[in-house]
């Protein structure tokens, strides 16, 4: 049953041209990011100061920045940081959200209402401010950034997973497993988790662009990734500072960032429609 669910979904996904295109762009980006040290024409820190900011040319396809660094290479290396933040922080959010949701949904009763109450309360707080606060207090550290963003984005995931688990809890196969004395841990791993993978996958795909936006936002304010490392957010920030004379420094990183967000959103929407055909009408 599980297999046919996924193969049906895969079939529907392959019919969705926007989603396939999104997925193709994503795979391309991930490959480019992974191979950046080998395919980038220059190192991200290689400076040709005498060149300065130069418009796109044969030597530098996307031009160079004010320090004479090749923009294409910097975008490729920036992809590593931006995608890394997107995936790792989403992973953190996933771990917290899924465990929280499974525990609340499976145990139920008072534990559930207290745990979900906490989620409700946290929902109402301005988390962006707390991330800024943490970055200010503990310094602008990449790992802290992963943790802080992940710690913010898990709330919706917890709600989704809890809803799914409550739906599953009263089904016969779960009761049968319980009656056979399956331990809680293997109940989660063997019986609950595989059945809620679909919604988790969908929501995770849609969380990645949100996380990347958040990282871009922080880096744009100068509170995220610090030099010499650069993400697309910092490239856009640098681009804005010199856009009056050297507009390509804003435009190319901006286009890359936007296309990536488009690809992730299209792919996520397509995945949702493929796994849950009921919602594809909206």
């Amino acid at each position, binding site marked *: 049953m599980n297999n046919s669910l996924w193969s049906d979904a895969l079939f529907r996904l392959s019919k969705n041209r926007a989603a396939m295109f999104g997925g193709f762009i994503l795979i391309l980006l991930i490959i480019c990011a992974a191979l950046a040290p080998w395919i980038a024409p220059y190192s991200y820190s290689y400076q040709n100061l005498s060149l300065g900011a130069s418009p796109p040319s044969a030597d530098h396809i996307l031009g160079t920045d004010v320090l004479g660094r090749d923009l294409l290479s910097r975008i490729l290396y920036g992809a590593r940081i931006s995608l890394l933040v997107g995936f790792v922080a989403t992973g953190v959010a996933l771990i917290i959200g899924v465990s929280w949701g499974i525990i609340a949904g499976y145990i139920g009763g008072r534990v559930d209402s207290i745990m979900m109450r906490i989620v409700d309360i946290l929902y109402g707080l301005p988390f962006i*401010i707390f991330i800024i606060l943490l*970055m200010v207090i503990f310094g602008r550290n990449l790992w802290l950034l992963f943790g802080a963003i992940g710690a913010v984005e898990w709330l919706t995931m917890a709600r989704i997973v809890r809803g799914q688990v409550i739906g599953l809890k009263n089904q016969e196969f779960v009761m049968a497993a319980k009656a056979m004395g399956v331990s809680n841990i293997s109940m989660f791993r063997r019986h609950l988790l595989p059945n809620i993978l679909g919604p988790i996958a969908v929501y995770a795909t849609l969380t990645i662009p949100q996380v990347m936006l958040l990282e871009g936002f922080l880096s744009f304010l100068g509170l995220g990734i610090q030099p010499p490392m650069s993400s697309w957010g910092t490239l856009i920030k640098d681009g804005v500072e010199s856009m009056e004379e050297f507009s390509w420094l*804003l435009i190319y990183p901006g286009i890359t960032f936007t296309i990536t967000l488009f690809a992730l959103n299209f792919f996520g929407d397509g995945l949702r429609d493929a796994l849950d055909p009921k919602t594809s009408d909206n």
Partner: protein
Amino acid sequence: MIAIFFRRILVAIPVLLAVASITFFLIKIAPGGPFDADKAVSPQVLKNLNEAYNLDASNWEQYVDYMSGLLRGDLGPSFRFPGRSVTEMIATGLPVTFELAFYAILIALVMGIFSGVLAALKRNTFLDFIPMAVAMIGICVPTFLMGPLLVLIFGINLEILPVSGWGQLPGDKILPSLTLGFAYAAYIARLSRGGMLEVLNQDFIRTARAKGLTERMVVIKHAMQGGLIPVVSFLGPAIAGLLAGSFVVETIFQIPGLGRFYVEAAFNRDYTMILGTTIFFSAMIVFFNLMSDLAALWLNPRSRDVS
């Protein structure tokens, strides 16, 4: 309704007190004092400064002091701007930020509801596809890119609108408000389209049509009231987003609002200012969430009867 309102307020007060306490102690464990800046100060000056700002008291005394000040609306002095209190700075920046947020939300509501409702009514025609494609762009182009791009086009290339400022040059409020409003217009367009589609298929709409009401009456009087509930519940969380957006927009356009003060305070490690604004923002967001939840409850006749 009233019972729900008071219950929510009762939960909100301890939550805000907890936020204030956690933020206070987080800042206490932050490495480095507020006065070890670039230029070294003599030990005597440092001692006097610490005394003046009550930093030589124990953490607990400072906490009690701060919290009792908080209850009176006194957020303490700013560390970086001697002689100015945090409350005063919030009072200066707030009207500007509110004005910006007001224009942005107005733009978002007008553009978003209009195109969303239109898209739902003309489903699967190009009046549906085009606004929804634009909305997708609005969601995928972040504020910190949209702002500079608008400046580049309208301010630098076309030279028809000022590139920065607030209330100094004619038309300088247009670009910031558009930048901030556009992303929300996109969300609202999608939400109102979805909400309207759901409502338009329901029986009471068929009844209204069968009664012989004009299509305009059916849409405005019957469908929109229910179809726009998702938009109303979105407005609360949107305020929180607007706040974050105001950090970016006020930085790009150099607007002297609360958002820019906050970002500057974060850079300057102006701890009392960070503490004060964090508490203030939290209170504001909790309040707006409450308001939008209540409005959504009130608009939905089913939940109105139950409570």
